[in-house]
C-alpha cells in the first residue's frame, strides 16, 4: 500500500460539515477513539454475561439447520429467546442478530410486528381472552372487563399486556385481549399459554385466574397439561419434552369437544355417509412429459 502524499490531519468532532471531516477518516483513523458519544455508551459492546448459555446457543444452531436459509430460523429463535427470559429483551434481539448475522434493527423490525413477542416480561402465565366480534357478542368482552377489574389494583383495572403479580414469580399472570382464536364454535374462549379453555363465563374465568394466582395449574379444555409461558415458548420454538411420558402426555392432551365432532356424530347417529368409494379408481391417463 502506498503512502498518501497529503494526509489530512485527523478530523476532530465539531461543527464542521461532514464532507469536510469524513474524507480524511481512512483506515488509519480510530473512529471509536474520536467519537464524541463514546462516554454515553453508544458504542459499547453488548454485555458479557449473556442470559443465553451454551445450551441455548446449541438450540439456536439446531434451528438454523432446519431451514434452507438461516434467516427463516428467526421466528422460532425469538420464541426460543422468550423461553429463556419470558419476553424479547434487547439482549434477546442482540442474540438473534448475532446468531443469524443480521442487524439488530432487522431483528427489532420483526419483533415489533408480531403480537406473540412480548416486549415486557410476561407473567408465569399468559391469559388471552378473545374479544373478536363473535366471542364478544357471546360474553368475551364482559369476561375481559371482569378479569381486568379482578386482577387490577386500587380500583384500576389491569391493562392489556400488564401483569398481575411480579413477572417471573409463581402465580403472576399477564392479561391480554386477543383476536379470533379460531375456536368460534366453543365461544367465548380464552387461552392460558395458548392452551384452550372453552365456553367460558365471567365466573369460570375469574375462578381460573384465581387458581393461576394461587399457583395451581387447571387442566385446559383442549391442550396439554398446563405448564407455564416459558416452557410453552420452547415448544413453539420447536423443542418438545425429551422424556417420553411427558411428551406423550402433552401430545395426547384432549382435543375433542362435543362441538368438534357434532357433525360427524350426527351423521353416525342418522346413518348418513359420503358416497362410497369405488373399489378401484385408476389415476387418469396422461402423457408423461
Amino acid at each position, binding site marked *: 500500500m502506498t503512502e498518501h502524499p497529503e494526509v489530512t490531519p485527523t478530523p476532530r468532532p465539531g461543527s464542521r460539515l461532514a464532507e469536510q471531516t469524513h474524507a480524511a477518516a481512512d483506515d488509519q483513523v480510530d473512529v471509536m477513539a474520536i467519537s464524541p458519544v463514546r462516554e454515553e455508551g453508544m458504542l459499547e459492546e453488548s454485555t458479557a454475561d449473556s442470559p443465553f448459555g451454551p445450551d441455548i446457543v446449541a438450540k439456536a444452531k439446531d434451528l438454523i439447520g432446519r431451514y434452507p436459509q438461516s434467516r427463516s430460523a428467526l421466528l422460532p429463535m425469538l420464541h426460543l429467546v422468550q423461553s429463556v427470559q419470558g419476553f424479547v429483551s434487547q439482549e434477546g434481539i442482540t442474540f438473534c442478530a448475532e446468531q443469524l448475522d443480521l442487524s439488530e434493527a432487522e431483528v427489532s423490525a420483526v419483533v415489533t410486528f408480531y403480537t406473540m413477542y412480548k416486549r415486557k416480561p410476561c407473567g408465569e402465565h399468559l391469559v388471552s381472552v378473545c374479544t373478536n366480534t363473535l366471542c364478544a357478542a357471546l360474553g368475551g368482552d364482559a369476561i375481559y372487563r371482569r378479569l381486568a377489574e379482578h386482577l387490577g389494583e386500587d380500583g384500576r383495572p389491569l391493562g392489556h399486556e400488564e401483569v398481575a403479580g411480579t413477572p417471573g414469580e409463581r402465580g403472576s399472570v399477564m392479561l391480554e385481549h386477543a383476536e379470533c382464536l379460531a375456536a368460534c364454535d366453543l365461544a367465548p374462549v380464552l387461552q392460558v399459554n395458548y392452551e384452550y379453555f372453552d365456553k367460558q363465563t365471567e365466573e369460570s374465568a375469574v375462578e381460573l385466574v384465581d387458581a393461576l394466582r394461587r399457583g395451581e395449574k387447571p387442566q385446559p379444555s*383442549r391442550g396439554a397439561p398446563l405448564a407455564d409461558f416459558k416452557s410453552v415458548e420452547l415448544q413453539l*420454538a420447536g423443542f418438545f419434552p425429551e422424556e417420553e411420558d411427558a411428551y406423550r402426555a402433552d*401430545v395426547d392432551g384432549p382435543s375433542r369437544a362435543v362441538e368438534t365432532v357434532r357433525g360427524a*356424530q350426527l*351423521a353416525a347417529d342418522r346413518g348418513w355417509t359420503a358416497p362410497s368409494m369405488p373399489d378401484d379408481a385408476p389415476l387418469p391417463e396422461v402423457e408423461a412429459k
Partner: protein
Amino acid sequence: MNTDPLTPVLTKRWLSPQSWRISTYEKLEGYTAFRKALAGTPEQLVQLIKDAGLRGRGGAGFPAGVKWSFMPQNEEKPHYLVINADEGEPGTCKDIPLMMADPHSLIEGCIIAAYAMRSHHCFIYVRGEALHCIRRLNAAVREAYDAGYLGRNIIGSGFDLDITVHAGAGAYICGEETALLDSLEGRRGQPRLKPPFPAAAGLYAAPTTVNNVETIASVPFIVNGGADWFRQMGTEKSPGPKIYSISGHVERPGQYEAPLGTTLRELLELCGGMKDGIPLKFWTPGGSSTPLFTAEHLDVPLDFEGAAEAGSMLGTTAVQVFNETVSVPWAVMKWTQFYEHESCGKCTPCREGTYWLAQVLERMVEGRGTEEDIDTLLDVCDNILGRSFCALGDGAVSPITSGIKYFRDEFLALCQDARERNATVPELVGAQQ
C-alpha cells in the same frame, strides 16, 4: 345430487379414539393413497385434481389442480410446498380441529402434493396460537419419518420429502400467501407485489405453491376415490364436501361436513335452529371478510357461485350466526377494530383507511355520530376496496358496506339518537365556571 345431508369425509376419523396417532390412521385406510400416488406420475396427479375440480378451501376458491400446474416442470431451483395453517379469519375454526384430530391426513396430502409438484421440502406454517396443533403435527411428522413415509427414498419410490412444522407468531396478515412467505423467510409478514406469483418466485424466490390445510387434506381421499366419486358431492363448479363451521346464536354450534351448496336453512336444521328461538338477524357465510347476509339469504346455496351471486363470498364457510339482540353497528365496529389492528401498514389505503374507519364507527356506537358519518364510511370504503395491496383491505370494508346496505336504519337510528340528545342537552362549552 342425491347425497345425505352430511357427508363426513375429512371429519369421519375425528370420532375415533386417539385419531391423531399413526396406528389409528393406518387402521382407517390411512397411508394407502400415497402409495397409489407414488406409483403414478406427477402429471397424472395434477390431472386428477383438475378433474376432481377441487377448489382452494382457504377462502379464494382457486382450482387447486390449476394452481399446481403453474409449477415449472424443470427442477432448476428447488420447489417448495407450503401449507397455510395460519387459520385466523374471524369465525373460521375448521383447520385447527382438523390438524388436532387427523394430522396424518394433512401429511399424507403433503406427500402426494409435493410429489405432484416435484417438491422435496414442505413447510407447514401453523398459527403460533394453535400450540396443540403444532404438537400433534410434530408428533405425526415424527411418526411418519419413523415409518419411512418421509425422508429419503420414501417406501422405496426414489422420492425424497422433508416436512418442517413452523410456528407463526401472531399476525392475521400471514394468512395472505405472500405475507406468509415473507414471514417464513424470517421477515415482517407483509404481502408481496404480484406478479411474480409464488409458482414463479415464491419462498427464497424459488417456485412455490401455497395451499390451505383442508385443501391438501382432501387430496388423499380424491386419490383413493377418484374424481367422479368426489364430484358426487357438491355442485358442478364447486364439487366435494366442505367443513361448515357454525358458531354463534344457534342451539348446537360445531363442525358440520356437508356437500358444497348446502344452505343456511339446511345447516340450521342440522344444528338445532336458532338458540332459544330468538330470530336470526345477520350472518357471515365465510368469515368476517365476506359480506354479511340476512334472513333473506337462508336459501342461498353455499358454494362458490351461489354465495357470489347473492353478493357475498363463500370464504372459509365460517358461518357466524347472530340473532336480533346484536347491534349491527357494534358488530361492524368490532370487526373494523380487528382489521385496523391487523393491517400490516404496508399500503396507505388499508393502513390509514382502517384507522379512520374504526374511529368513525367507535364515535357512532358511542352515540356521537352524524348522518354524514355514514357517507364518510362508504367513501373511505370506496377508497380501500380494490385499491389496497392485498385482500385484507377488501375484507375490511365487507362488513361495513354490507352492514350499511342491509341495516342502514340501524346506523341512522344511532345518529338520530345522538342528534336528539344534543338537542335536549344545552351546549355547555364555555358556560361553565
